[in-house]
């Protein structure tokens, strides 16, 4: 079970800024380990977000997104108390889903 994400969602007027930190190695497949062997690629490929259950964002990432990825986006029309949920799925098929309440 992957480590949890940190999601912060702050409303300012009609716009809610969502900031997400995900725990993931994001191995590019280009790095060599101490023994000189290539560490296989392993990275988040799909990210989706919902607002009160309604899909608002989908994204595809490649291995060049940094380790422990940070993502920021702005949801329109959300208000305090609403739920923002983020899901990621990686190249091994592992997934993680976390939710935050808009403050």
């Amino acid at each position: 079970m992957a480590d949890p994400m940190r999601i912060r969602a702050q409303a300012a007027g009609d716009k809610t800024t969502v900031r997400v930190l995900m725990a993931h190695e994001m191995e590019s497949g280009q790095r060599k380990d101490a023994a000189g062997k290539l560490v296989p690629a392993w990275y988040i490929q799909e990210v989706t977000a919902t607002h009160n259950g309604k899909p608002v964002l989908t994204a595809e990432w490649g291995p060049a997104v940094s380790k422990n990825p940070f993502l920021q986006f702005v949801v329109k029309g959300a208000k305090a108390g609403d739920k923002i949920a983020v899901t990621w799925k990686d190249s091994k098929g592992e997934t993680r889903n976390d939710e935050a309440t808009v403050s």
Partner: protein
Amino acid sequence: MQSRRQALKKTALVAGLLASTGMFPQFAFAFSKEAFEAKNLADVLKALGAGAPTESKDVTITGPDIAENGAVVPLGVSTTLTGVKQLLVLVEKNPAALIALFNVTASVEPAFSIRGKMGQSSDVYAVAVMNDGKVFFAKKEVKVTLGGCGG
């Protein structure tokens, strides 16, 4: 403008995705493998079935002038245009140019920030693929340097 191969791949992956998530049938999408393996902007756009790009002041790429470490470079892409289908982030000199692709919906602003890996100093691109097939971009040079040895 998808090739048959892409269309078939899409169907297979969609089936897989539906089976695993069952969450977003209307958003079921295939992982754009070819786009993420393409070496430059032109090839990325071709793989996505998009048109030729035009530089535009209505698209913005933000990032540092100098990144102390290429492992984590904060990059922002945004546009003031309406009718945007996707926003892309590209690092020209990376082994594969496309680093992230965002599907824009009416519920989010066409503005995203991420952190990317840069292998060396390079131009970075924000690319807006419009619903009508037009493509606009902005670019900026980010220098990458290794810092010293300590904190």
